[in-house]
């Protein structure tokens, strides 16, 4: 019901905005409550629709944000999200012989997922000293079979007249996992993460930023609904290791191109974990202002990962002997290419309208150094967003 209400709010906001012919720039609203000065309050709302091809999963997501600056140094942030999804999802792979078709293929079987809704919120408070930022946050996410609570801390330190920024982030997450079809399952998962980063201004028109992160996850790390097929034995719920160490290194180079007043963002991310997965992500985005406060941002992404050590489309008894097995297509080797664009429009300093779309196609053949073996799991999806931001 909350979902429908928010849809109406979005419609009301956009039609009000479109109805006003020439919105005058408004003078900044500054509030003073008992000596506590409040700056520009910002509110935002975003609606997203995710849809996979072949009538698989589709999802609708609604998000709201509020930013409240106080005393010029304290910043409070609130964010909520409602996710609703339904459709079919892969649950097990079987060799085609099992289905009476001896053509040597692997067949991916999908099962219908009953509609699910997730509600989450998070809060953040940050204090900006002259050169140091301290930020604390936390939140919680709830759905029928998965509850998550998380806390984070971040600090950033500006050096060299703010040409260099060093940052440190710490994150902790605690999850409780159940499964509708497995009433005896009560899983628990803990995630610890540390991130260190540096941002460096390289020239008047360029900068580079790089972050290195380490994550340790332990507990129930499997997907409680996914199964594997073990030859001559049948179907079993997947079993992933009960801990995982992963490292990520993400670098972005940003350059201004004066001839077009455009900004080019180039990003490379390297991921590795002790499950045997290595992944490379390349992204490029071109931010192009178009005059009259319009901006268009075409972008493209290429992704490649190799399969986890314990992944197989299906298993022989010897392969499953060490009791670590998964056939989840997310842990297979594959590549993906996606592209899309963002279009934004600013109105009179206080209203911002943004819409974006992205089309993603998974291709097993695009894996760097891969054999294209998991092409039976290839699929595609569309992601469309519409958002509005208001400064009060």
């Amino acid at each position, binding site marked *: 019901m909350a979902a429908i209400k928010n849809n109406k709010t979005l419609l009301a906001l956009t039609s009000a905005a479109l109805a006003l012919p020439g919105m005058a720039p408004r003078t900044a609203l500054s509030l003073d409550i008992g000596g506590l000065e409040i700056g520009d309050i910002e509110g935002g709302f975003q609606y997203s629709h995710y849809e996979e091809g072949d009538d698989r999963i589709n999802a609708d997501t609604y998000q709201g944000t509020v930013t409240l600056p106080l005393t010029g140094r304290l910043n409070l942030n609130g964010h909520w999200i409602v996710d609703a999804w339904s459709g079919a999802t892969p649950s097990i792979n079987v060799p085609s012989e099992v289905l009476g078709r001896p053509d040597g293929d692997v067949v991916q079987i999908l099962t219908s997922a009953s509609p699910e809704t997730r509600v989450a919120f998070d809060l953040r408070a940050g204090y900006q000293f002259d050169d140091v*930022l301290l930020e604390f946050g936390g939140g919680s996410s709830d759905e029928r079979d998965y509850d998550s609570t998380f806390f984070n801390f971040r600090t950033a330190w500006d050096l060299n007249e703010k040409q260099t920024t060093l940052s440190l982030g710490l994150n902790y997450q605690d999850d409780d996992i159940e499964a509708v079809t497995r009433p005896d399952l009560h899983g628990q998962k803990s995630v610890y993460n540390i*991130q260190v980063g540096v941002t460096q*201004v390289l020239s008047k028109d360029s*900068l580079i930023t790089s972050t*290195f992160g380490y994550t340790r996850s332990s507990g129930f790390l499997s997907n409680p609904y996914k199964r594997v097929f073990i030859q001559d034995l049948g179907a079993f719920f997947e079993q992933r290791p009960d801990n995982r160490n992963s490292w*990520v290194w993400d670098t972005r180079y940003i350059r201004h191109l004066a001839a077009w007043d455009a900004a080019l963002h180039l990003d490379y991310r390297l991921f590795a974990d002790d499950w045997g997965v290595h992944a490379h992500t390349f992204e490029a985005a071109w931010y192009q202002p178009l005059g009259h406060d319009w901006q268009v941002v075409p972008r493209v992404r290429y992704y490649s990962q190799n399969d986890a050590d314990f992944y197989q489309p299906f298993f022989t008894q010897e392969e499953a002997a060490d009791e670590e097995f998964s056939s989840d297509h997310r842990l297979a080797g594959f590549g993906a290419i996606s592209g899309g664009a963002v279009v934004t429009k600013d109105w009179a300093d206080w209203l911002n309208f943004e819409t974006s779309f992205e089309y993603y196609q998974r291709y097993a053949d695009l894996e760097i150094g891969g054999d294209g073996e998991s092409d039976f799991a290839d699929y595609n999806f569309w*992601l469309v967003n519409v958002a509005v931001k208001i400064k009060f």
Partner: protein
Amino acid sequence: MPLAHLTVIVCLILMLAACATPVKPWERGTLAKPHMAVDPSPTETGIRHHVFESKEASSGGLGGGGGGCGCY
């Protein structure tokens, strides 16, 4: 990840910082432009990354901040 690899990565980052040309505080007009921010649209980035992390095995990335107008 072996310690040797880590050291090389850290050195590369530091050396990049060393080849930066100094930019005076009043020369930051271009860097202050909204599209020069590290993440010009955090809510949109949020949903995008949420989708990718649900469909792929890797996760995580940038989270540093910095750049911009360098104002106090």
